């Protein structure tokens, strides 16, 4: 016996035939085991609370946005998925407690690798990754999440996910003005195209 295999040609053959039947028995036993499969659309898996899923922009208790438009998340992002364009708060329109707020905040979820660096980079804990993961859609353009879908609505408190708010996600995302301004959904998504638009817009805002 060497490694459990008997010596000799005939005995080895017999051993192999036995192995066939042991294999069959193993597989037969598998038939009655509990199946680890989750019936996904009807039964959903509960992810860990710190699972890296869809982002959300949070607020303070008084309803002010946490984001101060510092762009640290955009700089930290290894996939260049985040675009932030800040603007000054005015006394009449205070969006955030600081001097600036994010006039435009967009995350391209197709580029995002869900690493959570944005979360770590954020000085005010504004951007967080929620455990939600169901974002599929037929149009590439709809994967660019702007503030309207990222920001927790004021009436929902500080951290309720946007798609649980009373109105839900707008039915036709293509008509959301914010996205329309940066991408042409009908033409299809183009990162370069979008980048160019953003660059000119940023230049315009800066100048």
């Amino acid at each position, binding site marked *: 016996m060497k490694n459990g295999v008997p010596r000799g040609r005939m005995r080895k053959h017999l051993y192999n035939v036995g192995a066939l039947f042991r294999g*069959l028995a193993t597989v037969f036993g598998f*038939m009655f085991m509990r199946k680890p499969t989750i*019936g996904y659309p009807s039964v959903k898996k509960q992810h860990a609370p710190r699972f890296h899923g869809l982002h959300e922009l949070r607020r303070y208790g008084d309803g002010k946005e946490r984001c101060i438009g510092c762009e640290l998340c955009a700089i930290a992002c290894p996939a260049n998925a985040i675009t932030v364009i800040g603007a000054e708060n005015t006394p009449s329109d205070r969006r955030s407690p600081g001097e600036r707020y994010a006039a435009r905040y967009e995350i391209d979820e197709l580029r995002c690798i869900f690493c959570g660096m944005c979360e770590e980079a954020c000085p005010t804990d504004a951007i967080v990754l929620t455990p939600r993961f169901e974002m599929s859609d037929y149009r590439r353009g709809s994967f660019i999440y702007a503030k309207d879908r990222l920001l927790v609505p004021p009436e929902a408190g500080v951290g309720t996910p946007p798609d649980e708010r009373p109105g839900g996600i707008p039915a036709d995302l293509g008509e959301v003005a914010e996205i329309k301004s940066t991408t042409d959904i009908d033409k299809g998504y183009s990162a370069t195209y979008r980048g160019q638009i953003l660059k000119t817009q940023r230049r315009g805002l800066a100048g």
Partner: protein
Amino acid sequence: MSWLLVLIKSALLLFVVITTFAYAMLFERKIMGWMQLRPGPNRVGPWGLLQPAADAVKMLFKEDLTPSTADPLIYKLAPFISLVSAFGAYAIIPWSEPRPGDIWSIGNVNAGILFIFALTAIGVYGVSLGGWASGSKYPLLGSVRATAQMISYELAMTMSVIGVLIVAGTTSLAGIVHAQQRIWFVIPQLIGFAIYFVTAVAETNRAPFDLVEADAELVAGFHTEYSGLRFGLFFIAEYVNMLTVSCVATLLFFGGWNAPFGWTFIPGIVWFILKVLFFIFCYIWLRATMPRFRYDRLMAFGWKVLLPVATLNLIATAVVVAVKG
């Protein structure tokens, strides 16, 4: 009016066989799923019971493509050859005998088992012509493999069956079943049964002998280029062949409709169906367990192991029968 009766019987049987095929497919997917720790199809209908209907609808409405390099006539003809030869066997398979002498079958041919061999022989053409006519290299390779494999294993299969014919003393399927009233032939012909079982798997091109399809090397083998309904016909033929070899195994080795342990309170047809189901389960079980053979090993196994053993079994059977009789 006997021809009308035959026609009605045929239509009924066709319906039964098609339904059985559909549910054999579902059965296979379910069992395979369970053996691989999956639930199997469970979306369409309760427990996925309407899955065959969904598959059929999908297959019917898919586009039927003919490659530009294909030979259109043969390409279109091949699936029908496969299908006709697969269904032909049911013309003579006896299902049950509720009263002595009253055998449930469309036709009772004296050379019944030979007729089935003849149909199997025709079935090879569907595979080989289909692969050739596709006009591309994977189907061609698949079909050449299939032809060689099916011819090689047919020899051993015939040899293993002749042992049963010697013991039973008849070639009629009903006669063979009658001869098994005392003892099922699986016991005196155990080696013959083992060889028949293995060669039947090879003959129907199922795992672990599915060299013809060998997804990893040949895409899908002879039916790579087929789509839609024509692919469906090949698919049906494969499953119906599996049913046929299961029926033949039941008839030749497992006593057909004879009840085991004298439990005759259950009708013969139920026994027959149970036995056939058992064989189908075994095929699925094998498929879920065994890895695919290498091609040269397959041919070596067929010619150097199965055929000699089958021949020896045949000679031994003949000697024993001659000495005893």
